[in-house]
């Protein structure tokens, strides 16, 4: 079982990101789950979304998760959210920030000794999609760090997932995904 927790602000697209990832993974024959904690969500409120991936049908519906990957798509959440909750010794963190990985760890000592990767999904999405919607670039970064799928396969499937959007936005998302894939460190 592969488990992923997203830390986001409501409106940044973590739910869409989690569901999009589940959709792509499902096409490879694996079983998936994507869900989120909302409450009465207000835009900008800190929230979490989740993915489970397994070779077997996923029966577990508990919200509790000890994640393999933690994806943080808002740069401020590493200072205000409990983003290391229930971490495992080998939990991998991919964090949106304008800082370098070393600078980030220096500013948030909780990350010391952890497997930490950084990428500026906010800047990438602003420069490509034209809005701070950091969800799809984070998936590009996840593909690089996890080696889950080849980029061509992933992008091909994301085009299908995003098919209801205007072509211009889909193209911009593909550039954002590729940039995050190339830039994550």
């Amino acid at each position, binding site marked *: 079982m592969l488990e992923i927790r997203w830390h986001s602000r409501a409106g940044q697209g973590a739910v869409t990101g*989690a*569901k999009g990832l*589940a*959709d792509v993974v*499902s096409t490879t024959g694996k*079983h*998936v*789950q*994507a*869900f*989120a904690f*909302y*409450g*009465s969500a207000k835009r900008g409120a800190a929230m979490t979304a989740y993915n489970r991936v397994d070779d077997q049908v*996923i*029966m*577990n*519906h*508990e*919200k*509790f998760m000890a994640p393999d990957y933690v994806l943080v798509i808002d740069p401020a959440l590493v200072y205000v959210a409990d983003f290391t909750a229930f971490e495992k010794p080998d939990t991998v963190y991919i964090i949106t920030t304008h800082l370098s990985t070393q600078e980030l760890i220096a500013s948030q000592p909780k990350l010391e000794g952890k497997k930490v990767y950084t990428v500026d999904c906010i800047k990438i999405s602003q420069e490509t999609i034209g809005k701070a919607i950091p969800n799809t670039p984070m998936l590009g970064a996840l593909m690089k760090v996890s080696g889950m799928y080849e980029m061509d396969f992933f992008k091909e499937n994301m085009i299908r997932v995003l098919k209801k959007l205007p072509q211009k936005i889909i193209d911009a998302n593909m550039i954002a995904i590729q940039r995050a894939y190339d830039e994550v460190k």
Partner: protein
Amino acid sequence: MADTMELRDIEVWDGNMAASHALRQVQVDVVAAYPITPSTPIVENYAGFAANAYVDGEFVMTESEHGAMSCCIGASAAGGRVATATSSQGFALMVETLYSASGMRLPIILNVVNRAIGAPLNVNGDHSDMYMGRDSGWIQLDAYNPQHAYDLNFIAFKVAEDHDVRLPAMVHQDGFMTSHTAQGVHTMTDEQGFNFVGEFQPMNDMLDLDHPVTHGVQTEEDWHFEHKARQQHALMTAVIPKLEAAFDAFEALTGRRYNLVETHQMEDAEIAVICMGTSVETAMEVVNELRATGIKAGVVGIRVFRPWPMEQLAAVLKDVKAIGTLDRSSPHGTMGMLFNEVSGSLFNTDTKAVLTNYIYGLGGRDLTKAHLVGIFNDLKANMDAGKPTTPLQQYIGLRGPKLSFF
């Protein structure tokens, strides 16, 4: 003629999307709705299908849930296939009209996305609304995941609209835990889905002007009791055979099997939990892990909540030594519903299992695998002692001091 939608064999849908597509595929004539979290996307998606010509029927926006169900009642009495969706406070506002729908024998399908009922206000999932509906005369089916939410809608239409049944049916799913959780859902083609249910066959429809009928009449002590007795007779005798036939037909079509009472590892189980919704599946996973350590644990899931499958449940529990009933609704002054129903189902049998009750998950509080392991440990101690070793009713996952009664 509505456009056909091409679906992949497996779509990644949440429970709401799954229910929306089921409503689209059976081509409902009238959906009248007043959306409420977490069921909103069911009618929102459906309205999108209607606007994009995937639906021939009418989509009616009403001023309240009371109005939505009232509109459904009118449309159903007129002679159409009718459905809607609601949750929680909206369900509560519908209650008066739920009794009208069942009393008038109108086969309306209501998707209930189970949610807590305030105060305090809470949008998350528990079973308070589902429990509130249990004396309303509706058939109640319970989904544990998005696949079930899709499948059970087809079964609900097929059974409710059968002329030997003619009763409304609710399809329940857990708010957020199913309704907003995307999982792989095996789909039927539009043709397969529609043909499983078939064309709507009206009965005593008001728009059949050659055969005028009256619906929603007044009866006092002269006839009210006889009407209610006939309603109960249909629920008690007609529904279960029709459900079993529908489950068989659905399995033949899709390979997916549903049962009145779902069981997991019950063949030789000594201890078992009984629950509903997503908890059933989480408990199944816990049982698989406990079995690996040699503990003979099992799970019973209630699939058909009304009519209550008393005989089937008693048969499944025949050899069990200790049972935990898990209720996701505050019983407010008594034992949990499942404790009382299971007691009633076993009292006149030879089964003398130790029976205890757990209240959990109110307002969406997580039921973890660790909680379930704790419950199974209690049950094992009860079995070994041959009597309860804990209070009869315990609160699980509650913060602060432990709470228990009796």
